[in-house]
């Protein structure tokens, strides 16, 4: 396990004041918030920043982290040999004397912590519910993001979805338990929608009912299609003569291939709409074919001759609109 430098993650000095840390954290959190940021790795960065912030903004956790860090640094300095320098393991009993009260988010919304964090703060930080047999309480609702294929939304599907869920073991301690759920993906589901699985969340306390599980649906990126809400887009390459003269071509859709009429005189970028062939529903989405004119290569004498014959028979000037002015 690598030692995580939370100070470096936030770009602050080890002796930074709580205000400095807060400021640096907020700035980075805003920058990498996955709902705002366009950075490709925003989600991963946001998670790292969140974890660093969770530790360094909490005086108890920061003190514990600093203590573990300086102990680790001493071991490094004592020369435990090269090759070991990346390895970090919390020294036994290091956390004696620290009691984590857990901040406001002791609601068990299990933030996905790194192994490093888990090793340091482990269960103590997870705000595990204490066993109180006389208490009856509904279990917590859980959330998980799942990726499905666009085709599943067209046809509906049953998918085994594997989740690591926080659960209580026999002694009432929080553990991560892997389970596979056979989930019915309803036909017509769209990205960003949620599936609710009643009673599949956290277990209730006492005779309280179990919580619900919410699955946040997203699509795997598709080789051919772009999705926008209910509508689906395909870039369809056509030859110049197909666009100019019109043609009947076949195009794939997630529902199988369709015969498509390209109107004569089409230009690149023209959108042909197949009404109701997007994601099914009420109303169903539309399927758009966006024409992309593909130029045939001119790498054979025959192809060159064809281009030359075409040029000879045409007075087409692609730059006509540029003429007659430098202003």
């Amino acid at each position, binding site marked *: 396990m690598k030692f995580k430098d939370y100070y470096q993650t936030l770009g602050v000095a080890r002796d930074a004041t709580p205000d400095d840390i807060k400021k640096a954290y*907020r700035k980075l*959190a*805003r920058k990498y*918030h996955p*709902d*705002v940021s366009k950075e490709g790795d925003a989600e991963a960065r946001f998670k790292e920043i*969140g974890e660093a*912030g969770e530790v360094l903004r909490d005086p108890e956790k920061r003190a514990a982290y600093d203590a573990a860090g300086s102990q680790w640094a001493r071991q490094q300095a004592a020369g435990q040999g090269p090759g070991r320098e990346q390895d970090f393991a919390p020294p036994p009993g290091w956390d004696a004397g620290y009691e984590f009260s857990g901040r*406001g*988010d002791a*609601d*068990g*919304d299990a933030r996905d912590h790194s192994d490093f964090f888990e090793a340091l703060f482990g269960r103590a930080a997870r705000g595990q519910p204490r066993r109180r047999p006389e208490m009856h309480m*509904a279990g*917590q*609702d859980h*959330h998980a993001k799942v990726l499905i294929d666009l085709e599943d939304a067209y046809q509906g599907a049953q998918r*085994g979805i594997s989740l690591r869920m926080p659960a209580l073991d026999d002694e009432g301690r929080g553990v991560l338990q*892997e*389970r*596979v*759920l*056979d*989930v*019915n*993906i*309803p036909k*017509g*589901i*769209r990205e*960003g*929608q*949620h*599936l*609710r*699985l*009643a009673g*599949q969340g956290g277990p209730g306390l006492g005779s309280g009912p179990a*919580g*619900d599980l*919410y*699955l946040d649906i997203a699509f795997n990126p598709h080789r051919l299609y*772009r999705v*926008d*809400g209910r*509508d689906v*887009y395909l*870039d369809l390459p056509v030859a110049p003569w197909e666009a100019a003269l019109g043609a009947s071509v076949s195009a794939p859709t997630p529902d199988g291939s369709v015969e498509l009429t390209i109107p004569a005189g089409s230009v690149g*970028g023209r959108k042909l709409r197949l009404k109701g062939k997007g994601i099914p529903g009420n109303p169903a989405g539309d399927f758009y074919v*966006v024409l992309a004119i593909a130029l045939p290569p001119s790498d054979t004498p025959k192809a060159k001759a064809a281009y030359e014959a075409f040029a000879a028979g045409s007075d087409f000037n692609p730059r006509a609109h540029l003429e007659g002015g430098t202003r």
Partner: protein
Amino acid sequence: MSRYQFTTEVVEEDVHLSLAELCRACHAPEEQVRVWVIEGVLEPVGASPQEWRFKGPSLRRARLALTLTRELDINAPGVALALDLMDEIAALRAELRRAGEG
């Protein structure tokens, strides 16, 4: 490892959440959700909090509002503004995607 099987509901289409259900689903205190309603972050139907029914898409909005509140320390009017701006960004990005740029 065990396998389970069951049917599912699409929150955005089949489900209307009560105040208590929404709070449970997004792990937000009731007081917080009431403030969001006052600020227009969420717009339930129903006259009183007991009668409030939140449409399915409120779940995503409430979860986002909670992140902004907790992770970025933004107050309720700020959350309302941020969510409106995010909606606008989403609409613009969708427009870009339709144009084949995105």
